């Protein structure tokens, strides 16, 4: 592929999804500076491999690269951020006794702090689902896990947020 072709393809496939790419990187990295670095690195990779993207789902393709770049970056610079998640532990979902409150009035700063405190995999699943509107299948593709795992991560992530706010009596 010639340089102009790559450039055109990059503009067509990657650039439209840069907002989502940045939001994901920002939530994974935790600050603006590192998020910008991750997005730049991801773009370098995406530019190199843009010829391999056959356009089935460019957004998922871009987000996958951002997610993997962020992972690599975190492993290198902040290894303590990567915590092992036991995806088989479904105990929390079946807890039906906890009264679930509404988040309408939740203070967004408090919500941000709570979301930042979630394990990386949970945060990633929630951001992709709720903010980027990805389907379970797309999230599974981006995160490289099975659809069932996505389902379990999402419900556990939401349960943790519900519990967090219920304990604080904020809902």
């Amino acid at each position, binding site marked *: 592929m010639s340089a102009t072709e790559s*450039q055109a393809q*990059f503009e067509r496939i990657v*650039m439209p999804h*840069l*907002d989502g790419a*940045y*939001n994901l990187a*920002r*939530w994974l990295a935790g600050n*603006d500076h590192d*998020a*910008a670095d991750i*997005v*730049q690195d991801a*773009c*370098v990779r995406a*530019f190199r491999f843009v010829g391999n993207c*056959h356009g*089935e789902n460019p957004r998922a393709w871009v987000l996958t690269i951002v997610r993997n770049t962020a992972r690599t970056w975190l492993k290198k610079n902040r290894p303590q951020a990567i915590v092992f998640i036991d995806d088989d532990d*479904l105990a929390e*979902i*079946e807890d*039906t006794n906890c*009264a*679930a*409150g*509404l*988040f*309408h009035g*939740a203070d*967004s700063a408090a*919500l*941000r702090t709570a*979301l930042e405190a979630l394990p990386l995999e949970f945060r990633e699943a*929630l951001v992709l*689902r*709720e*903010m980027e509107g990805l*389907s*379970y299948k797309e999230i*599974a*593709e981006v995160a*490289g*896990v*099975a*659809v069932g795992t996505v*389902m379990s991560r*999402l*419900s556990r992530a*939401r349960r943790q*947020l*519900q519990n967090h706010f219920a304990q604080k009596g904020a*809902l």
Partner: protein
Amino acid sequence: MTCVEIRPLLHAFADGELDLLHELEVQKHLKSCAGCVAEKDSIESLRNALRSNDLIYGIPAGLQKEIRKKLFTSEPGRPRENPWIWKMLAAGATAFAILTICLRPAGLSEREQFLGEAVGSHIRSLQAAHLTDVVSSDQHTVKPWFAGKLDFAPPVSDFAEQGFLLVGGRLDYLEGRTVAALVYRHNKHFINVFIWPSENAAENSVENYHGYSVINLNAHGFQYCIVSDAEEKELANLAELLRR
């Protein structure tokens, strides 16, 4: 269904990811259970809260420009001190490349490339949780799924009775075109069958590539490429079933 059964489904329900049957079950349950309605409302209100603009980070001004600059403008290189030596090296490399291209056994490499592609597609399908786009052991579900996604209608058959269980299908890319990929399971092995219309009747073949068996078969106007780590003998049985 009871609350205990409904609760795990509520998330997928709120996410619009349930199949019709379960969706109806949940809807029915919600009509008579305040607790589950509260849970569903909580999930939805969390979604609305997360989608508020405060929490979604916008891209900083200038980052797009910076990325374009970084990728599209090549850095001006240092002036080379001995330009002639680079020219000599370049000429040498070109000559070497021409020689290599001319001397390589022509057919073999194309074949290797094809085998590499087919086996690569097979391995990727197992790795990335992307074995199937349509999951069904019913050939009457899998076949219509391909309609409109391909410019041909691939033959889809289930051979469960003969030990080859149809798992599903997906689209794949092989030999520069979109092909149908059918996935079968035989004992513990997954088998990818790539199918595309054959313009010319290629020879049938059984090959081995990096430990994977690859069978090429031409039948009913289609080219079949069967890839698996299962025994060659077993694959041949499947090939025979497909050929009939």
